[in-house]
């Protein structure tokens, strides 16, 4: 019985604990979960599978539409003159903090916090 209890709590930990605990730490993932977007909505059945751009764009619209939302930025990351269909997760890694991939060459790129959905 004790074994079952351990297994039970382990299951809980694995099913909810690890992903949600991480999600609380990693705000973008939490934002997804809060809005009813579950792990498998992006990853499909296999959480170890890489998230394809098509999964992101299915909800978020095309790169062109996204470019409209970030047109205030001096270097609009959704309208790159260098790359077409840059992997979304190069910036929006979701499980970690948002990074700006363009910074690798273009130096620090900051955006006013008023644009963020995460307060």
């Amino acid at each position: 019985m004790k074994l079952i209890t351990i297994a039970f709590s382990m299951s809980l930990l694995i099913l909810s604990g690890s992903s949600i605990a991480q999600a609380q730490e990693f705000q973008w993932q939490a934002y997804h979960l809060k809005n009813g977007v579950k792990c498998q909505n992006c990853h499909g059945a296999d959480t170890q599978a890489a998230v394809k751009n098509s999964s992101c764009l299915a909800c978020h619209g095309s790169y062109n539409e996204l470019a409209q939302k970030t047109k205030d930025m001096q270097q609009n990351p959704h309208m790159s003159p260098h790359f077409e269909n840059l992997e979304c997760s190069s910036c929006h890694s979701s499980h970690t903090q948002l990074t700006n991939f363009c910074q690798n060459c273009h130096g620090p790129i900051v955006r006013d916090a008023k644009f963020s959905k995460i307060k």
Partner: protein
Amino acid sequence: MKATLNNVFALGILALACQTAYGKTIEYTTDIAVVGGGSVGLAAAVTGAEAGAKVIVVEKNPYLGGSSNFAEGLFAVESDYQRAKSYGLTRDQAYEHIMEYSHFKNDGAIEREFVDESADNLRWLNKHGVDFEVVQISPKEPETWHLIKNREHFVHGAALVTALQEHAEKDGVQFLMRTPANTLIYENGKVTGVKAKDHKGNDIVIHAKAVIIGTGGFGNSPEKIDKWTHFDGKDFKPTLPLNKTGDGIEMGREIGAAHEGETLMLHPGTDGKGIIPLGNIYTMTWQPANMWVNAHGNRFVDETVAFSFAHAGNAIGRQKGHYAWAIFDDAELQHAKNDGVDNGVGVLVPVMTKLKNIDTEIKNALAAKSESFKSASSIEQLAKAIDVPVANLKHAYDSYNLAATTHYDEAFNKDRMWTRPLNHGHLYAVKLMPYHFTSVGGLRINTQMSVVNTDDNPIKGLYAGGNDVGGIYSDTYTLWASGHAFGFATYSGRKAAQNALEYIKTGK
């Protein structure tokens, strides 16, 4: 109750299995596997897919194109674009000059075919939505540089990369992004696929009838620069962080491929506190009318070498400490600001660009006490600021100004057009260092782009192109044939795919 618990238990195990499924193996089967989604890989993929082959491309970066996104023009001779300008350089003349330039250390047969087919290569690209404008890269090179015209919002090489990418996507080419290949599958004397690892840690195994390598060289690996070239990977730095670590060359060498000619496509540049990459101060490192001195305070070259970036990189690279200083005065500064620069940094900063921010950049660099930018009101002060012997620098400076007045540079025979006195207002010095756009050299190939072993026998099923192959250059990039690397990358990718298709069909 127990049943529920058991279910939960089973579910828990399942969840555990899902969440810790590292090292899962995902297998694919295809006709052609392409390693690297740059211009070699994309040209190969489109060529293969258009002929009906199933193609999978593995790319380690989160974007396609690699350094081709930032390159600007392609070499060709007897092209339609040259014809339209009544430009008369012939294939034979270009071939002879390239061989001479390379001291016959390159492969004459590969070069001959490349030059002969270079115009056709542009026609093929043209058919795939890439347009060009032919220009001279500088007064020292012929008009062979076919600049890629911008397409939609894509600039420079990205216009070519995205055009091919869109064709490949339409033709059903499968791209596995952020999936660095690591091993060739080599059985019974044949390459039958490639192994990779995706960024989630899954093992990817692609069974293929042929593999084409185009990973863009090893410019971002200081270790490999140390190991494979005579350059110091610490002092000879890559221009851009593109993650090119010689994977394709390494994989080929592991199964016995021969290799040759590993070196770097050098160019001058600078970096340091308060200096913006490719900014206005940076652009001054490419100007021909500056005076250059080394760590001893001596001039060492006709500074118009700045027009030919590969040569300029050599000249700077061989100085003590692998650096030099470019010195200019307020008159040159005003010239760059008001008349526009004499030499472009490719077309990233086009010739005639007016350096409108130079005053601000200089102010910032000096305020930041930049180690790479100094200013002084006399040559003696400047000598102290850049830490060179005062007497030497003064001698170099006086002789240079005399040459500017007499219109004859006895020391280095610099053309009087670019020898202007540096005696107006302040003096400035920007540190010159050698950088590289890419490495060149690598796997030894034949005219079919087949990778060969140390007996010069083709390794069946293995092809390579672009900056992963050797036999194309000597010790220095052939800037005379401007656009050679980009031209060859697309050409060799297509050629590799054509021969891979033939091999798949006939076994030969």
